[in-house]
């Protein structure tokens, strides 16, 4: 795909917002790929962590927000724990989720959850799941 790259993509407000919310500096990432290598769910992501960061560096926030990746991140912190530049892809995914959730768009609806799950699952699964998926 042809991507027109301009100053406004790189110096955009939305990137600044993602950096502020996540506390991460996108430019620190040098694309070594360790996060994707470590990530237990990268196999199922439409855009794996390393490439997600790259696309953010290039200002392609919309493409990243459309992908399922941020919803699949399990916050296990393997990516961060092995990152040679101490960048947390998990934090960036959380920031992207926040970007979406703060607009009031939930990823999961409570009413859709099956009753056996609600009855049998540990409370922490429900609480943390709500925090991650529900606006």
């Amino acid at each position, binding site marked *: 795909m042809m*991507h*027109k790259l301009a*100053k406004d993509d790189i110096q955009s407000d939305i990137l600044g917002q993602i950096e502020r919310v996540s506390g991460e500096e996108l*430019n620190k990432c040098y694309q070594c790929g360790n996060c994707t290598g470590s990530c237990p769910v990268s196999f199922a992501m439409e855009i794996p962590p390393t490439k997600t960061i*790259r696309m953010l*560096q*290039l200002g392609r926030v919309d493409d990243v927000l459309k992908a399922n990746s941020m919803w699949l991140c399990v916050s296990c912190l393997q990516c961060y724990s092995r990152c040679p530049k101490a960048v947390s892809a998990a934090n960036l995914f959380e920031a992207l989720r926040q970007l979406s959730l703060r607009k009031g768009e939930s990823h999961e609806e409570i009413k859709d959850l099956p009753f056996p799950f609600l009855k049998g699952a540990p409370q922490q699964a429900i609480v943390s799941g709500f925090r991650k998926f529900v606006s």
Partner: protein
Amino acid sequence: MARIGVFICQCGKNIESTVDTKKVADEMAELPGVVYSCNYRFMCSAPGQEDVKKAIKKHKLDGVVVAACSPHMHEKTFRRACEAAGVNPYKCEMANIREQCSWVHHDTTKKAGTAKSIDITRMTIERLKKNKPLKKISIPVNKRALVIGGGIAGIQAALDIAEGGREVILVEREPSIGGNMARLSETFPTMDCSQCILTPKMVEAELHDNIKLYTWSEVEKVDGYIGNFTVQIRKKARYVDEELCTGCGDCLVKCPFKAPSEFEMGLATRKVIYTPFPQAVPNIPVIDAARCPKIQKGKCGICEKVCGPGAIDYEQTDQIVTEEVGAIVVATGYQVMPTARFGEYGAGKIKDVITGLHFERLASSAGPTGGEIRRPSDDKVPDSVVFIQCSGSRDEAKGVAYCSKICCMYTAKHTMLYKHKVPDGQAYVFYMDIRAGGKRYEEFTRRAIEKEGAMYLRGRVSRVYERDGKVIVQGADTLSGDQIEIEAEMVVLASAVVSRTGADQLAQKLGISYDRYKFFNEYHPKLKPVETVTGGIFLAGTCMGPMDIPDAVSMGSAVAGKVLGLFSAEEMAREPITASVNTMICNACWDCVVACPYTAIEKEEVRNKKGEIVRVNAKVNDGLCQGCGVCVAACRSKAIDLAGYTDEQVYAAISVF
């Protein structure tokens, strides 16, 4: 009859486990000319060497064979021992029965090893019988050095040699010393101003009592050999008397004619009488004769009129000066690859596509824009600049296969300089890999990316073209996998570092070798990095390949150490393995002259008392001969032989094979 002693080493178990050294020693004792033969546990040990010395005295030996390890290991050891006991060191030979026998034949019955050791030792004994005592050759050394090239490497070499108390001739073909470094704005990774650190060194070189400067001069011819070179230098006509000129600069102000400035890479003009840049050393102008109407057509003459001391001399001609030196340092530097061959980058057509060296001038506070980044086409401050690394480097098809080594770093520096000068601007860098292997280099490139906001894109630019006053750059970002298009306002090519035009001719004059890119070859890339295969000629800086300033300066100093080492003795000793001509047989076919890789064989004219030529024959110059023996095999009349490896010696060895 020879009186040879044979010493068979057991090397602990290393030889003894597969060779019956006692048996070898016994068999050797039977050979004619062998008066003493023994075996011993460790011949190279102090007692072992003592035994050799004692045997030499006791048995009045005139030759010694030590059958032990490879001569590459201990030949020197035993030759020294022999010399101490009064036997000529070249009458000592080693028979290699360890590396080439006991270690490669694992038969513990010792049958194969013993038989082969006997053969090897016997061949060595027969060879030794034909050995002549030889004496190391001593060559007088002229303790002056010639440095070719006045860039940072040459300046450093010259200063260090001069500080070491030896005279230096520094030859520079431009009107000023300083080289490419004088063009640079700031230097990575410390960002100190290039001129600020270079100018003091230039001045120091000019003022040093031991340095004689020839600028606007070129080496014309080199004769001789290590310790004894004769060099002819062409001092090109400057049309300004160097003795009279005070460097006041009136002529430059008044000269009415302009030409593109070479130093400013064509980004500015200079006068026809000019110094390349204000801090030039020496501060003496030169007239661009081809563009001077006075010299071409006899019209003008203003500079002569305004020159107070009367230093202008339109009649000046090139002069050839001859200097005698003992060592030569070659430090002729680099140039950047002409961009014209990269049509896809629009170089030469699109005004706003420039090279890194152009960018250096734009960024330099002493440069044509006073340090402001303005693009050449319309002086606009570009709001985005694309830097293209590997422009010609790592390109086997159209450029050079090697990495130019400095571009990753200077491009990172350029993005920083640009960001500092144009804070709103956006720098893009297309790269294939970032090679930042020096001290504090990786941190520097990361700083450009992380702190100074340079956008690095991993990919090679495929095309650059103009559209509506913009420079459109089309490439790829292989990290995201996408094609990328950028509307830029200026493009900077990190053009490949290539050898100087004419480097091959200089190499031929000097008799040194060069690679397919015309970079000069070091003797050994690891262990003799500043020597050439030609004794007394050394290399420093980018004439050997791309390198950065710290490396060039290190090599300049390294070479100075080598030169001062060479100059530390009155005479230098050389291995006497050289060829010599039997003039009675030489039929003057000159095959040897053609074959010799060192131009060590010359045509000698023999004259009678009246001075008439009675005969011509070949003559080997001991100083140049390296002892390869190519001439010996080339000689049809068998007039040449090689000391230490004579035909007689070889045939003697073969005869007992």
